């Protein structure tokens, strides 16, 4: 469903963040993306969500080349992709409810239907009691979970997560991973970028490993490799 075909990305200034990356993620597959800090994990996710465009190579979703997507179509692409951002990216002046409701409002949901979906999403991440709070009053981990609720609220068929457990304790990390697994079980494709090696090893999912922009491993992580 998601295909990277010899994708390279160099940032202005000539820094090569990704170097001829090729892989494929099947429909309903869940995979981890690991690598040292600066390896290019976020860059790879940005190429999928059309925040950045590749320098060369092709990124395809369902055989549709993302380079063919025109500017005005980008918002509609992003509605199909749930993204959990490394730095949360919440609206700090709006309540948790408003934050989670945003993707729904954009898609034209209103009234009871919208409220029901928002509550369901917040329930999944265990934040139903914080609906009326402002993100500022939440802990880092709680903010992270608001971001997760927002990413899944409109049930996207593809979920990208950039360090979703960065600020969570092991217990909560496990809960959140279970949320992802639950989504995966209903057919959502999930790609999770993370540093958390213990987590990756425990979960035993396919793991893509990047090192200085190159893909050095694709498959189950066999051993605790020093990254």
């Amino acid at each position, binding site marked *: 469903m998601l295909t990277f075909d010899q994708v390279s990305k160099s940032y202005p200034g000539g820094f090569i963040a990704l170097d001829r990356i090729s892989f494929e993620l099947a429909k309903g597959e869940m995979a981890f993306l690991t690598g040292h800090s600066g390896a290019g994990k976020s860059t790879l996710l940005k190429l999928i969500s059309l925040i950045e465009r590749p320098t060369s190579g092709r990124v395809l979703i369902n055989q549709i080349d993302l380079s063919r997507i025109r500017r005005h179509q980008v918002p509609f692409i992003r509605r199909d992709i749930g993204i959990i951002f490394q*730095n949360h990216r919440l609206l700090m002046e709006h309540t948790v409810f408003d934050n989670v409701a945003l993707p729904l409002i954009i898609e*034209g949901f209103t009234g009871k239907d919208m409220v029901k979906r928002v509550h369901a999403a917040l329930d999944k991440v265990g934040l139903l009691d914080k609906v009326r709070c402002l993100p500022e009053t939440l802990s880092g981990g709680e903010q992270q979970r608001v971001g997760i609720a927002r990413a899944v609220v409109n049930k996207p068929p593809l979920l990208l997560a950039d360090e979703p457990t960065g600020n969570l304790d092991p217990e909560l990390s496990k809960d959140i991973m279970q949320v992802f697994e639950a989504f995966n079980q209903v057919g959502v494709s999930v790609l999770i970028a993370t540093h958390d090696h213990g987590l990756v090893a425990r979960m035993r999912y396919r793991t893509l490993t990047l090192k200085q922009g190159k893909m050095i491993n694709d498959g189950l992580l066999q051993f605790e490799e020093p990254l």
Partner: protein
Amino acid sequence: MSILFSGRATGATAKKISLMQRWWMSWTHHLRQAIGSLGELWRTPLASLMTIAVLGVSLTLPTTLHLLVKNVQSISGSFTQAAEISFFIKDDATEAQITTLRTMLSADPEIEQVHFISKQQAMEEFSQLSGFGQAMQHVADNPLPNVLLVLPRNTQPQAAETLRARIEQERIVEFGKLDIAWLERLDAMLLLLRQAVLAIAVLLLSAVLLIIGNTIRLSIMNKKEEIEVMKLVGATDAFIQRPFLYTGVWFGLFGGCLAFLIVELMLWWLEAAIGHITELYHSHFTLMAMSLSEFMALIGIAVALGLAGSYLSVSRHIRAIEPTGP
């Protein structure tokens, strides 16, 4: 329908709702966004009030000038007597001759009205008005002539002039006097005034456009972060624009209303002063205030400028904001 995932029904359209319901939903949605923008203005009351005040003042000047032109025009319009022709009667004309001429002129199809001012009447009026009453009593011989005031049916300067020339032929008429030069001058001045007002109005209205555009630009910059997030979760430019457009409309509306209030206050204040002057001139001039249609035009122009100003700003700056991602 999704572009990438065929068969994925997206958004509220996924539910089957009637056209009527959808229409109703879009209206309530717009209303909610409009009220939301109003709330945004309220969050920064001082800044919003300042902007509205600037807009109000900028709109007041063209409105006032318009009213000025309108009033001056109505004054000049009330001078149809300007086309009045005065015929000075020869001193040796007899009472009977004058009466004959009066009846003859009254019957003339080109003449609307004939009014006779005898030399005695003229004298009385003059001494009353001039305040020279006492002095005039000492003038033994009345130097003023008998005058026939003729109001032509056709008040155009050209026609009036022909009429004057014709009646001047009468034997007992010394000469006829048609004072049209100043009328022409007044007309020319009015035209000039109107053009000046138009130029000033255009300048000030473009100022309004720029003020609104800049205010909206600043509020876009303040919300850069928020706009990026909205773009990241799939908001179209149009969706992000709408609240800002509403903000522009509110600015226009409030600015227009403020201008109206200022103008009304000014008229009320001037009314007393003008009443005093017109009394001195024995005239029944009353200041013409803003009519309903003029009020609507003011508000309409203000709102349109608000919308246009914010659109100019929004269409450029929102497009320029691109998220830099996770």
